């Protein structure tokens, strides 16, 4: 047979080649899938951390009316999270038993807001967001009031519920 005829093939050879082509494509696709799917699944899988109550101080440590920064450990931080394992919050003692906890993340794009005690305002250093003492937006670009964390008093300890970072 000449080279050209060998390449074109008889009808039997052609149908065989069609089958082999489909087999190769299927095998390659399957191989790619069995590697890619678990890898992508791992990448996309988010482990939802359970929310836990964390102590932030004894109830007597906090003056009524004052807003102070408190720190607490994230729920189940990874051992290698190091210094990033903590979260900060602004805690205000409203009266004898009541507290209010604000997330430090500005609701605009997440920069940490600062509490100005003499001005009774939260100010964000990034794009000019300002919040009143109760978390409402005073001025600037933030679209929503400051997020609050659930807070309770248990056995004389003030506790904040670890929550996911508030994403608008």
């Amino acid at each position, binding site marked *: 047979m000449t080279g050209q005829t060998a390449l074109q093939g008889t009808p039997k050879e052609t149908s065989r080649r069609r089958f082999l082509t489909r087999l190769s494509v299927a095998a390659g696709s399957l191989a790619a899938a069995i590697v890619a799917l678990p890898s992508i699944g791992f990448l996309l899988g988010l482990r939802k951390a359970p929310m836990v109550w964390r102590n932030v101080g004894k109830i007597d440590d906090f003056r009524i009316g004052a807003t102070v*920064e408190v720190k607490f450990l994230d729920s189940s*931080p990874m051992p290698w999270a*190091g210094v990033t394992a903590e*979260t900060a919050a602004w805690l205000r003692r409203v009266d004898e038993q009541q507290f209010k906890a604000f997330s430090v993340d500005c609701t605009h794009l997440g920069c940490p807001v600062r509490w100005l005690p003499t*001005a009774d*305002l939260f100010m964000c250093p990034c794009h000019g967001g300002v919040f009143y003492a109760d978390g409402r937006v005073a001025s600037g670009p933030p*679209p929503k009031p400051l997020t609050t964390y659930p807070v309770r008093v248990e056995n004389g300890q003030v506790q904040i519920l670890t929550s996911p970072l508030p994403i608008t």
Partner: protein
Amino acid sequence: MSILKRLWKWFDDITGVSDWLVPILRHPVPPARKSAWFYVLGSATLFVFISQVVTGIALSSAYVASSARAYETLLFINGTTLGRIVRGIHYYGASAMVILIGVHAIRVYLMGAYKYPRQINWLTGAGLLLFTLLMVFTGQLLRWDQTGFWSSVIAAEQAGRTPLIGNWLGHFILAGDTVGGATLSRFFAAHVFFVPALIFLFLGFHLYLVLHNGISEPPKTGRPVDPRTYRRWYHDMLNHEGVPFWPDAAWRDAVFGLLVLATIVSLAVFLGPPALGKPPDPTIISASPRPDWYFLWYYALLSVIPKWSEDLVILLGPLAFGLALILLPLIAGRGERSPLRRPWSVVIVIVIVIIIAYYGNIGHIAPWSPRLAAQPLPVEVVGEASGPVAEGAKVFYEKGCEYCHMVAGEGGVRGPDLTYVADRLTPAQITTRIYSGAPNMPSYTNNLTHEQLTSLLAFLDSRHRRPPKPVALPANIGENNPQLIPDGSHGENK
């Protein structure tokens, strides 16, 4: 025959390298004449990219991408001269990448080189531009100090604006509910493995296409691109006028490339790498996150656009820009190439450059909203050390007014300058403004006591242009002419 030549001949006989390498090196290119130096930008971008890969590999040998330990490894790298130089080359190289890829894109756009048959070259280039921006963003984050840490939060918040999947997307970027152990690893994997892999893919295709289609000749008015005849015309032109790429055209690439890299290395050696901020402790609230200079314009833009347009700008802005880049070669793939016949292309480039320069400058003046580092006004500015005006100046500072308003050069620039506000507004008008606030100013109805407001008004009402200082008279003139002594009742001589 020398031993090297023999070695080469043996190697070449087995591998056949010279069969494809020599034609690539010697392939004919159009003579660029007056436009010759415009063509060095693409290769310069490539050389800087290679420099980034090399310095990146060097850095990755010492850097540990752990949220807990990264900062310390950065201190370690910064502790040696060579470490600082390599960090510096990588940092200035990143800036150079952004500048060069931008200028290269502008050059290609203005010269209409995105038209037939180079449309896919443009598309792969657009992809490379996107990847470069991703690289510089994730790269700044890997400098895992205060700013790097908060940048990851800001990225997640911006992604969070996406409708429907925003919350999921934001937490995907952070690799968890909060910034934690997995966050930095995710950005490291993106910056070192995932995006570079995409770059290599797109870059390979980009370079292959340059060889396949040939580098574009400088455009000429009256010579529009016609897909039916272009390839044959280009081929004929090369046959008549083409010069070998190596070395007739490549020498400019080599010289300019050396210039660019020498500049980068000099900056690294003499200016040093960017300073490391405080460690990425989420409980340090006094952070003032800033993007690196190439994103400052976007940062400033987000501060000044009206609130209702934010979602549109953050989401649709980049999408619209990307769509424009993709559609360009598809809808304008033929016709005149010279910018002289395409005035809108010049207008568009000028507008883009002006926007980026203008907002970049605004972003550079930061911290500008609010200027939280402002100090209380000194006595010389206030005019009195005690009394209602001095009390008012104290209130002015403590209530945060000074963070956004300037008086005599001290304070923020967000709100109007209040140095001479009494010249413009009556106390009643000032009171109204303080109580009602504005879209960018809080309302102080509940934040000011009556006494505080009174002092504040006393202070603000004292802010008017002082009458000109009287001429200094000889000391004894008052003895015989008491009416010549000026009235010092405004306390100006204190």
